[in-house]
């Protein structure tokens, strides 16, 4: 019997080692994968500021704009559909590499009422984290139990891709992500005005799970000694208000978030409310109803860069020769290409 158990365990060890080795081949090669690989593991850069959260942040804050205007280094770690619980664990991985950055947290996903985020979207974040105790915790808390093993060994999730593997699956080129510093916005122009509804002073509770993780992030900011800024990006919230698995009044939720931020002495920038000050023209500056486009992101990033320089003691690295590469990188950025035009 001991022989059976011993050999069985050895077999499983070998098998799971192989799964671990081949899993990266099968994971979808998206920009999200690239940015996490680049930002977490490949780049040696230290960032003054890190952007965390969902697609709203992913396509809203451009580190190249902030660098170009203020010489502040930053990286955008946000991925599409990233729930706040996944953000928490991703942030813990970010903090392993970056000491005391200013953490800018997108609060959009505080509105999610489901226990777990959409599987494909949670995968964007978790699949691309390297194996660690933190990743195990992320899997345990951000995914339903039946998905734990496939999240641990993504090949079990994506095995069906065997028939459509491409050359890039065996060697993904992260260079474009390196130049964008994690930022990626669309270039559509939405063309429609924002839906109008009455402003409200109402408050609704932050859903229990997202509140739990917001509290954890706040707690982490104290134990890891980093400054936290909460941000809400411009968006037409009439859509998520009607979405299942979401609070039915985002504006009331953000009022609660504002109260929460005040009571915890955390800055909260509701860029949705500040859209007029920033100069956001919804029809021209949005890629779709929920996400800024490249021009909108430029305006928001400019505004946010100004806010950072006015409120935080951040060094302008532009003339520092150690950061010369950042000036070079900027030339390859999306924003540089549109400003040339």
């Amino acid at each position: 019997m001991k022989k059976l158990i011993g050999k069985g365990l050895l077999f499983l060890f070998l098998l799971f080692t192989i799964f671990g080795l081949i899993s990266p081949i099968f994971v979808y090669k998206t920009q999200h994968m690239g940015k996490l690989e680049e930002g977490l593991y490949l780049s040696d850069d230290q960032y003054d500021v890190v952007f965390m959260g969902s697609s709203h942040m992913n396509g809203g804050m451009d580190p190249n704009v902030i660098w170009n205007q203020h010489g502040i280094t930053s990286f955008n770690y946000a991925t599409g559909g990233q729930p706040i619980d996944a953000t928490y664990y991703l942030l813990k991985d970010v903090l392993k590499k970056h000491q005391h950055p200013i953490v800018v947290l997108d609060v959009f996903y505080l509105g999610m009422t489901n226990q777990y985020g959409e599987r494909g979207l949670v995968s964007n974040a978790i699949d691309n984290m390297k194996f660690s105790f933190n990743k195990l915790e992320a899997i345990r808390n951000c995914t339903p139990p039946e998905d734990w093993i496939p999240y641990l060994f993504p090949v079990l999730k994506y095995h069906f891709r065997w028939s459509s593997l491409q050359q890039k699956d065996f060697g993904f080129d992260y260079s474009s992500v390196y130049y964008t510093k994690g930022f990626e916005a669309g270039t559509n122009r939405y063309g429609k005005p924002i839906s109008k509804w009455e402003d409200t002073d109402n408050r609704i509770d932050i859903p229990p799970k997202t509140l739990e993780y917001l509290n954890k992030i706040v707690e982490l900011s104290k134990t890891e000694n980093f400054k936290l800024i909460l941000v809400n990006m411009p968006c037409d919230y009439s859509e998520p208000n009607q979405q299942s698995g979401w609070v039915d009044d985002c504006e009331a939720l953000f009022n609660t978030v504002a109260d929460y931020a005040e009571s915890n002495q955390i800055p909260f920038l509701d860029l949705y409310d500040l859209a007029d000050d920033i100069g956001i023209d919804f029809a021209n500056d949005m890629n779709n109803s929920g996400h800024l486009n490249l021009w909108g992101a430029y305006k928001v990033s400019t505004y946010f860069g100004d806010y950072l320089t006015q409120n935080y003691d951040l060094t302008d690295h532009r003339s520092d020769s150690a950061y010369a590469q950042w000036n070079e990188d900027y030339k390859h950025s999306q924003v540089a290409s549109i400003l040339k035009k």
Partner: protein
Amino acid sequence: MSFVSIGFLILLFATVLVYYQTPHRYRWVCLLAASYVFYIFSSPVYAIFLIVSTVVTYGSGLLIGRINSGTGKQKYKKLIVVFSLLINIGILMVFKYADFFRETYSGLLALFWVSVATEAFHLILPVGISFYTFQSLSYTIDVYRGDVEPQTHLGKYALFVSFFPTLVSGPIQKSKDFLKKIDEVHPFDYAGIKKGVLLMLWGYFEKMVVADRLGILVNTVYENPSKYHGLESILASFFYTFQIYCDFSGYSNIAIGAAEMLGFHLAENFNCPYFAKSIQDFWRRWHISLSTWFRDYLYFPLGGSRCSKFRRCLNVLIVFTVCGFWHGASLTFLFWGLLHGIYQVIGLLLKPLKERAREAMGIKKQSIGYRIIQVAITFLLVNFAWIFFRADTMENAFLLIGNMFQFDPAAIWNGALFQLGLTEPEFIAGLLGVAIIMLVDILKKRIDLRTALMSRNVVLRWTVYLAAVLILMLFGVYGSEYSAQSFIYFQF
């Protein structure tokens, strides 16, 4: 609890570990507990019917046994058997056939312009009921015939009915064989466990890599038969023929392998059925435990073949119609069974003519060419009958058959075949899988592949074991397939 689940594997391996650590006299407790855990995870409420079937047939066995030994009244013997049959078949009838009978009743009345509004029952079929009722009924009949002594130990008898590797889809066990096996001492046998695992792996390959892959194309065509023609329809029918074989043979191999891990050696349920030389031969090779059941408990009691030719033909038709009905409560299954009966009746009636023609042409019975023709004809007949088995309705079956003749040869090269749910590599993988399974079917008649593998050196063995599991995990059809769309969505 599906065989293709982590839950099942955990239960099986945990049972194996506990089973071999348990003293022999209590091992039945371990297996019975595992079996009921397995069943409760599959169908918690309906465990009651498993218990009812067990208790009724156990009690009937005891009473009949007393009569057999001369301590009971002979006149009640038949009554007890009828009672056991009524309870077991009654449960089966209610759950499996209530809606069919309701629809048939309404349909018949409609023929006479009588309209009766009846509501569908929509009863959920208790898992494994068709199998465990047949198994427990066979026990009642065996005791009645005096072929087996009644089992006095309720726990061991309950294990006979509910043994979890065979509970859901067989193979149906014979009481005279299996009850003895429960009392046999099964010492821990490392090689035996390994052989069981290897058979299970093979079963998983048949099911996950081949059957479920072929099933994608089959479902595409059968769910919309009017849309597909010619080669598409023909291909779907052939794919289904292999799908059902790989699916059921795979399931049986997993069951037999799991039982082997616990020291129970069960007879094989499939024996290269698509190499059969006649329909009669096919039924000696296909779902052997069920065809044996029908032979022993229906065909022989009806008179079998020791009667007039007419009666024999009638017996065959009855048995195969019942067999079809057992598979499912619809006209399609009924017709499938009847068709197999008709095949055999025609075969029986034409046999002298066929023999005379063969002799006149000077064809030797053992010649390879003759045997190939026999196998091919049998295969095509079986393949044709499967169309009715798979189609949702008789109309759809005939539609699919009709569409087969609207042949467009361009489908061979214009890529139409790869628009049926399987991409070209998936399609090729499916065909390759079928070829491997057929090859193994041929090889296993000559050599014991598992023993041959286990006699090789450790590096080769472990390479094969790891490769086998990797093939399953990579090429198997399982899990939620995350589409690229769900990743790109919300990206901006």
